[in-house]
Structure formats: C-alpha cells, structure tokens
C-alpha cells in the first residue's frame, strides 16, 4: 500500500495554526488569555477562516452582543461564508452578518424579534437556512454534525486562567463550550468583569482560549416577567378551569409552564383558588421553569418544592439566593441555570406542559408561525411533546395514558403513560383574530419559504387538551378523527370554526366528558374576578417576596 499516511489530528493542527496567527496578530496585546476590546477585530480575523462553522452565543435572554458587533466589523473579503449555528437570533447584528456577506448559512432555533427580517433575507436569497430546530435538537447536533470551529460566548466574569462565572444566566454556554472545546475548536468569551477569583467556576478555564472585557455589560432581556395588572378576568376564568379541570383531575406534580398571561394567571391562583380546593401538596410541586416572578406567591405559600431553570430572570437574583431549597444555586448563592439540561428535564421528567399558541387547526396541530415571519419555536416543541423514551411512571402520566388507551386493542393494549400537553387559548386573540382555523398559516409559510414541512409548534397527536374560555376538550378520549374535530370545534366558541360545529355531536361529547364547560366542573364564571389573584400588581409581587424581588424599572409603577 502506498497511499499517503492518514493524518488524524488535522483539526488540532488547524487549531494550532489559528492560535499561532492570533498570537502573531495580537503581539503584546495578548496577556495570557486576555486581550483588549480594541483588538477583537484582529483576533477574529486571525482565528476565523472562510466557511467556518461559528456559534455566536445568542440565547433566549443573554446575548454576546459585543462579539456579535465585532463579527459584523470584519472584512468580508477575508472572512466570508460563515455557517452560523446559534439558538436564538435576537440582535440586528445576527442578521447583519448575512447582509454584509460575512455569513451565508444558518442553523437556529428561534428568531422572535428578527423573524420578519429573517423571512425577507431568506426570500432574497441572502440566507440559506439549514434547518429550524428545537433547542435540545440544535444542542444535540453541536455534538454530531454541527460542531462549531469557533464559538463566541458570553459570561459574567473571568479570572486570569479563563475560568468563567456565568452568573444566574448560564443558559446555553456549557453546551456550546463543551462541543467546541473538545473538538479542537476555539472558544472566545466576552465578560462583564475581570476578577482575581470567580465566585464559582461555571466553565473551566482550560476550555477557554480568549477573554475580552466588553466595554458594556452584555444585553439581557427579562422575557418571563408578566405584570399581573394585565391579567384579564377571562384569563382568571381559564386558569380556574385549568386548575380544577386538569391539574386537580390528573394530580399534576411535575410540570412546565409556557410564557404568557394565561399561565401567569394559573401561577397566581395557586395560593388562592387552588388552596381553597384543598390542592396544596397535591399539585405543582416540581417545576422545569424560568424563575417566573408570578410564581413567588405560590413559593412563599409553600406550594413549590423545586424549580430548575433554563435561564434566570432579571430582578429575581436576590429572591433566588434566599430560597436555595427551591432553586438550583451554586456555593456562591446565585442560580445555576442550564438550558440543555432543563430542556431534557422538561421533556423527560415533567408530566405536563401547558402553554399558549396563535393558531390551532381541526386536528389540534398548533403553531405560532405567521405569514411573513420565520420564527421557529425554541423549546416549546420539546416541552409540548410526549416523551417516547420515558419509562418511569407517575399517576398523572399513567392516567393520561390510560385514557388514551381505554377500550383499544392491539398495539394500544400495552399499558403505557402519556405526557399531558395542554394548549390554553382564548378563542379570539386581540383584534378579533380567531385562534381556531381550518388551515394553519404554517402551510402557506412553508410554501413561501420553501420549507420541507410546515412549521408546526405542537403536533395534534401530542396535544392532549385544548382549554378555552368555552371549555376543555380532552383529546385523549376521542376515538375518531370526526370526534376530535368536533371536540375542537366545541371549544372554539364564536370563531367560524366554532360556529360550524355539529351541535348534536358536541352535546354528545359533552355528555361523555370529552368536552367540559366551566359549569360541568363546578367553576362559576361569576367567581372569575381579578381579586382571586394572589398578586394583582408588580408591587404585590415585590411585597410577596419580602422585598427580595427587584423588578426591572420598565415594570415599576411606584
């Protein structure tokens, strides 16, 4: 055999060449792993090569904003065709990269604030989208076929060795750095402060190559704060129905809540309405959840045993520190969040997901995708999907599984549980947009953006319940497509979908308990007032926390 000898460390050699270029470019500007922010362009130009796969840390909440801006300053003649892999496109810079010709391909999870612009760039051919993922799915691919060559991440502080303290918002950082550092990649971090000793080590220093003190603290969004003052009477009603008709019915102990006023209302009804039903200790003990301020009254009233979080929430720092029995905290006292692990926890260890959506069709497929926007769904699909790999049993899981299997034979006869996946929506959104539709906008969007499949957030076969102000449709009990359709029409109220229901069949489904109206579960609509909320204002939340919660100034009105 005279084939040339295979080189087995090409990636390591590439890494060494890049590091050598960086040392040469930075000269005295590089002290250990540290360099000045003015030198960031030199560094990035030295370590990046055209076509590199780059992870620019864009989280749900914290953003490596300084590095994002630095990346847009590069010369596209030298650095181009980057393949960006990142969970969230939150900043304008994330898309500027494509307009400037620095990057060309994108794999991501969520693009909420940039979704309209993303759609425009895609249709203009300036971005090639690999795929839209869930968070967990994208993190998984970091370890399979989307491993970054260079990662640009974000932390609170670093010591001289490059040990990182991420603060409460650890979020995606461990997943990104692990995938990059152990596959001969390069890890560059922006920090808010340089310290002699970090309060705790969230990322070990030998996984980190370069540290830059950013001129300004990184951007971070309080995404999970909902002002209780904006919760409507209708949302209170729906929360009462959820608690009595689903939480109590299944004895849901372990759960995840989507973001929104509907779920905030549920959280605020636990110490009042749910307490009055004698449910304390019977529901809602364990959570995979960002530290929602709206959960404070329930925590204070002793409802909550544990909360593990994807990320933190601005203003909750001192409260979390003071409640280490509930939250996951480090030896320094501050929260340790971790999106990858919390997503896994939410998927495998929770018995229920409840969240809102924009559109539901007659099969129960639901989507937040809107025309002219390419948004993705972040973590919702992992939360809102039955965990097919789950093998441990809990009463809630077993009951849902039994309802789905009742009276069925063949493959359905095997005892098995099912996750409760609840969609909670008002039949009309604002401006009288119906939440129920014959056909999801997702179909048209898929056609426009040349997607292979319509962007569905939660598939109908995963949805177990649809809850509206008109009632609860239990899809576990439906046995035919027609029953399922009428169950959905039956709670769709005065939307065109609802008005087209077969009244006789809907009444029949109601008799069977497939559809339950408020009065069927003993909820009196007249009791649904805001006075049931354990906190009616942000100020009440601060009071409930004993002054520990410090809401961002935009949420203050005192």
């Amino acid at each position, binding site marked *: 055999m005279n084939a040339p000898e295979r080189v087995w460390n090409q990636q390591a050699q590439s890494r060494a060449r890049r590091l050598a270029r960086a040392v040469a470019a930075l000269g005295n500007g590089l002290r250990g792993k540290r360099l000045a922010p003015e030198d960031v362009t030199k560094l990035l130009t030295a370590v990046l090569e055209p076509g590199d796969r780059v992870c620019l840390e864009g989280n749900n909440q914290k953003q490596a904003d300084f590095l994002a801006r630095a990346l847009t300053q590069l010369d596209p003649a030298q650095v181009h065709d980057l393949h960006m892999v990142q969970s969230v496109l939150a900043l304008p810079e994330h898309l500027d990269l494509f307009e400037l010709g620095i990057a060309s391909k994108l794999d991501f999870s969520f693009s909420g604030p940039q979704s309209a612009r993303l759609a425009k760039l895609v249709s203009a051919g300036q971005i090639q989208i690999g795929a839209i993922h869930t968070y967990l799915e994208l993190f998984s691919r970091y370890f399979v076929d989307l491993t970054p060559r260079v990662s640009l991440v974000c932390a609170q502080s670093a010591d001289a060795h490059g040990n990182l303290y991420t603060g409460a918002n650890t979020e995606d950082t461990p997943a990104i750095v692990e995938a990059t550092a152990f596959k001969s990649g390069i890890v560059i971090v922006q920090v808010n402060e340089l310290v002699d000793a970090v309060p705790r080590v969230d990322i070990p220093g030998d996984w980190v190559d370069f540290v830059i003190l950013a001129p300004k603290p990184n951007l971070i969004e309080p995404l999970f704060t909902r002002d209780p003052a904006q919760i409507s009477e209708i949302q209170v009603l729906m929360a009462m129905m959820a608690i009595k008709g689903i939480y109590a019915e299944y004895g849901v102990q372990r759960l995840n809540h989507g973001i929104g006023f509907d779920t905030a209302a549920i959280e605020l009804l636990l110490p009042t309405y749910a307490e009055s039903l004698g449910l304390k200790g019977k529901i809602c003990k364990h959570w995979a959840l960002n530290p929602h301020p709206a959960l404070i009254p329930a925590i204070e009233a002793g409802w909550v045993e544990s909360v593990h979080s994807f990320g933190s929430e601005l203003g909750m720092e001192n409260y979390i520190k003071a409640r280490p029995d509930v939250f996951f905290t480090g030896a320094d006292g501050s929260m340790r969040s971790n999106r990858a692990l919390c997503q896994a926890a939410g998927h495998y260890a929770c018995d229920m997901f409840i969240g809102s959506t924009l559109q539901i069709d007659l099969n129960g497929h639901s989507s937040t995708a809107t025309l002219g926007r390419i948004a993705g769904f972040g973590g919702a699909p992992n939360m809102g999907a039955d965990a097919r790999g789950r093998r441990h049993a809990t009463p809630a899981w077993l009951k849902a599984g039994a309802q789905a299997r009742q009276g069925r034979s063949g493959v359905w006869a095997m005892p098995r549980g099912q996750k409760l996946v609840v969609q909670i929506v008002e039949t009309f959104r604002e401006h009288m947009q119906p939440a129920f539709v014959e056909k999801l906008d997702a179909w048209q969007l898929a056609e426009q953006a040349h997607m292979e499949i319509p962007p569905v957030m939660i598939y109908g076969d995963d949805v177990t319940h649809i809850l509206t102000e008109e009632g609860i449709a239990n899809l576990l009990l439906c046995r035919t497509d027609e029953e399922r359709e009428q169950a959905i029409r039956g709670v769709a109220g005065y939307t065109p979908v609802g008005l087209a229901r077969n009244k006789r069949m809907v009444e029949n489904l109601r008799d069977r308990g497939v559809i339950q109206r408020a009065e069927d579960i003993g909820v009196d609509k007249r009791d649904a007032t805001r006075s049931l909320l354990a906190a009616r204002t942000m100020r009440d939340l601060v009071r409930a926390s004993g002054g520990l919660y410090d809401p961002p*100034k935009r949420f203050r009105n005192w």
Partner: protein
Amino acid sequence: MNRSFAESTARARVAHLLDADSFQEILGPAERVVSPHLALLGVPSSFDDGVVIGSGTLAGQAVLIAAQEGEFMGGGVGEVHGAKLVGLFKRALRLQPAAVIVLAESGGVRLHEANAGLIAVSEVMRALLDARAHGIPVIMLIGGDNGCFGGMGLIARCADHVVMSDIGRLAMSGPEVIESSNGVEEFDSRDRALVWRTTGGKHRFLIGDCDVLVEDDVAAFRSAAIGLLGQSIPLNLATMEAEHALLSDRLTQYGDCRDALDIWRRAGVPDPALVADLEASEMQALKTRKPKELA
C-alpha cells in the same frame, strides 16, 4: 384583600367611597347625555360621557361627588363631560355640601373634541374656584392608572386638598409628549421608575403637592376624604401669598435638581433610593420627621 382603587371603575369607586347606598346619580346613564361629537368621528360614546356625578353622604355628611372613568377616552374632558363637572360645582353653591369630591383620572382635554374640551377645562376651573370662594371645600382623589394630567392636572391643584395613592400620578404633560418633543434623553417615558418618581404620589407627597398619601385602597381614600371634610382653605391674598412663597422657595431650593432623588436627598430624606419601595404608611413618617425642609 382590599378593594383596589386603581382597578375599580369610576362607578365602583363612588359606590364604595361613599356611605353604603347613599349615592344618587345625576344625569345617569339611562338619561343618555352623551357626547354629540364622538359618533361623527366614528367612535362609540359612553352613556355617562366618562364621568359619574351625583350626591351622597360621607360619614353621614352630605357631599357632591364626581368620578372620571379613565378607561373611556383616557378620562378626557369633552363638552358634556366638562359641563357635568361645571354643573356639579354650581350645584354646590346651592346645596352647600360638606365637600365636593372629585375622583380625577384624566389625560386632560379629549382630543376628539379638543376645542370644547379646552374651554370646558377652563369653565370647570372657574366653577371650582367659585365653589371654593363660597367656602365649600374641594377634595381631589387621584389614584387611577391613567393619572391626572393636562387640564385636569391644573384643576387638581386648584382644589383645597389633594389625596393620592403612590400609583396615582399628577402632572401637566405626559412623559410621552415630553419625550416626543425633546427626546428620550429629556424624559424616557419607558423608564417607568423614572416616570413615577417624577409624577407619582410619593414625589408629590414629599414635595407637598399632595396632602395625604394612601395605599391603593378605596377604603383608604374614603378615610382620607372623611378627614378633610369641612376644611376649606380661603382664597384670599394671604393664602395666595403663602402659596407664592412656597413655590418661590421650591424653585430656589430645588430648581437645579435633575432627579427626584436629588430633591428628596436635599429635603433630608435619609436614603432616597429606598423611598420607591416604602409603603404609603411609611412615607408619612418621612415627612413628619422633616416638616420644615419638606414644603
């Protein structure tokens, strides 16, 4: 749980502020005295044009009362709305109640009928001052989410007494208006903490523009109002000179302050940064401890 003043409708505020079942409405909704102008502009009217007026008793004493509905057109004063208020003050001359109580929640002039509204605000002001000149106390209660701005902010300061909750706001121009005229550096209207410490009840209380600061609770407003019944401040040269001296001193003492925190610090508040999180009851102590410095 208390009955939130801010969350109650104007009608509910009146019903629970006065002695139970004592309220007698004048020109109630069934009379349909509505704005003649809104329909022309394609906007639905309200049967009471956004203000509830009438008579009742407070701790057994006869009062006249008005409450603006902040949810309807932001409490804006239009032709009918304003005329109802004018009528109430003129009626007071005839009935000599223990007070005229105004639950003010308004952005000022209702733009849809701007000219009528502007003149109406002026008419209300003159009628109010007329009632005061006849020894009838006028008490303003401010605690709605929409605050008390523009023309109603002027009218409020023509009254004998002002009672506010700490979520109530009293000012002239809305922060959004100032921001759009002079930029976000002048006044960041999205910085709610800044908005409240500039216009909110606590600042107004510390600086002396509000006489009683209460919790966001209808019962608290009720007891504050009861405490002020029958206390008329005469409108004469001496009281006007005193007011003038107070306002001149304020300008001298605080005219160079850039933030409420500066004013509070200079006024002797020990830790101004903590004021925001104090309860209304704790604010009283701040003020009684430093009566001289604080207006």
